[in-house]
């Protein structure tokens, strides 16, 4: 979306309830700045993320999608993020195969204590996606606002 003539990406961050959502919260309480274009969606575990959600996020206007979860080995449900890791690897590989820019999707493991890492990751991701420009390849023209 355009703000003052400059492209500002819309980022959707799926954060697992136990680690990364708490990590996001910590970055907030520590007053660490990260861009307002990141929209956080809380899910119970990174394993909840259905590939359809990622496509739907792109359809509804996201320019980048990031999944944040507990570190492998520390999943609140013991093994959820292991499955998510495999699933996301295959999905991202398929998106790349279809020519969708691979820098638009990412997985980052953020623990509840890593407020700094959360803010830094979001800052960096927003910068990367800004450079890529608006999502055109997985765009649904019916939903575009500009």
């Amino acid at each position, binding site marked *: 979306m355009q703000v003052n003539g400059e492209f500002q990406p819309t980022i959707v961050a799926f954060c697992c309830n136990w680690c990364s959502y708490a990590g996001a919260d910590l970055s907030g309480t520590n007053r660490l700045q990260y861009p307002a274009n990141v929209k956080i969606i809380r899910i119970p575990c990174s394993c909840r993320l259905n590939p359809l959600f990622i496509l739907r996020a792109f359809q*509804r*206007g996201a320019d980048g999608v990031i999944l944040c979860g507990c570190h492998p080995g520390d999943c609140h449900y013991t093994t959820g993020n292991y499955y998510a890791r495999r699933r996301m690897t295959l999905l991202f590989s398929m998106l790349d195969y279809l020519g969708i820019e691979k820098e638009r999707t990412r997985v980052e493991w953020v623990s509840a204590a890593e407020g700094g890492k959360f803010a830094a990751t979001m800052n960096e991701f927003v910068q990367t996606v800004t450079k890529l420009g608006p999502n055109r390849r997985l765009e649904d023209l*019916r*939903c575009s*606002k500009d």
Partner: protein
Amino acid sequence: MKQLPLSRLNDLFAAISAARKLYIPADDAAGQARFTVWQEGTALSKNLNTVRSAKDLFFPQVENLVGFKVTGKQIELIESRDPSEPFVLFGVRACDCRSFDILDKVFLAEPADTYYKSRRENGAVVTMACTRPAETCFCTVFGIDPTDPAGDVTCWQDEKNLYWRANTAKGEALTEMLPLLGDAGEEAVKTQQAETRKILGRLPLKDLDLRGFDGEHMMELFKSPKWASLSESCLGCGTCTFVCPTCQCYDIEEFNTGSEVKRFRCWDSCMYSDFTKMSAGQPRPTQLERFRQRFMHKLVYFPANNDGVYGCVGCGRCLQKCPIHMNIAKVIKTLGEDAK
């Protein structure tokens, strides 16, 4: 009768395209024909027919009907119908041309479907006679002459020339716009027609017998035990309905874009398990009922309601594209005995 050397075909397309949007059958990346908007460099396909029928141009697969926007308590209606402008549809075969008459009976009956109607009024149909029919063709069974198709203009093509004959006022008007067409006699066309008719006499499906497929035999056909074996391997995929030039069922759905609700219609298929599903349940619970419905509609209900006009034009697309090779010809043959 007019004619044009084939070497100037491109000039013809350029001349038409300068005044109207022109669609011609052109090959896609997989080598199959589809109706494509002509631009400089688009070549006329040498394939017998397109995979998707010409009904696409009058009844597109997805069509916006209207939009709604809600702000507070106000509902705003947004006109979202695709603007229709005059266009020319070139290279339509006799079978597809007849399908327009069948679709007209459905869409132009009162109250007329204005989306379809405006496209029909805007479209000029230029047909092309066939010279090398396929084994899957059986348009002659339905009284269609592939050597003399209908349409606003009829064309024939031999090794040297394109022949052009206007049939309607629309066709005359189009011809007036094309001074590059020269005058011609009838002999070349008549010779070609005679040659093609010899091939038509060899088509394996030319003798399909439609006697008995009518309103009087409706219940016998409906109750035939042969539907079970005919439908048992049907996958219910819907390919037949989508390539068929006369299938006309559609669904009306809504899509919420986030800021607006778009109401659109899209092709539906009686083969689908949720077709005409109602809150009380599914009236056609198994594939047998759905399969039977499709063929009864085309061969019995439609002619019973439309003065004997069958809902099939013998284009043969279902024979070519069904994943398990079931088709209307097999149904006619199998049920033929019951219908007598």
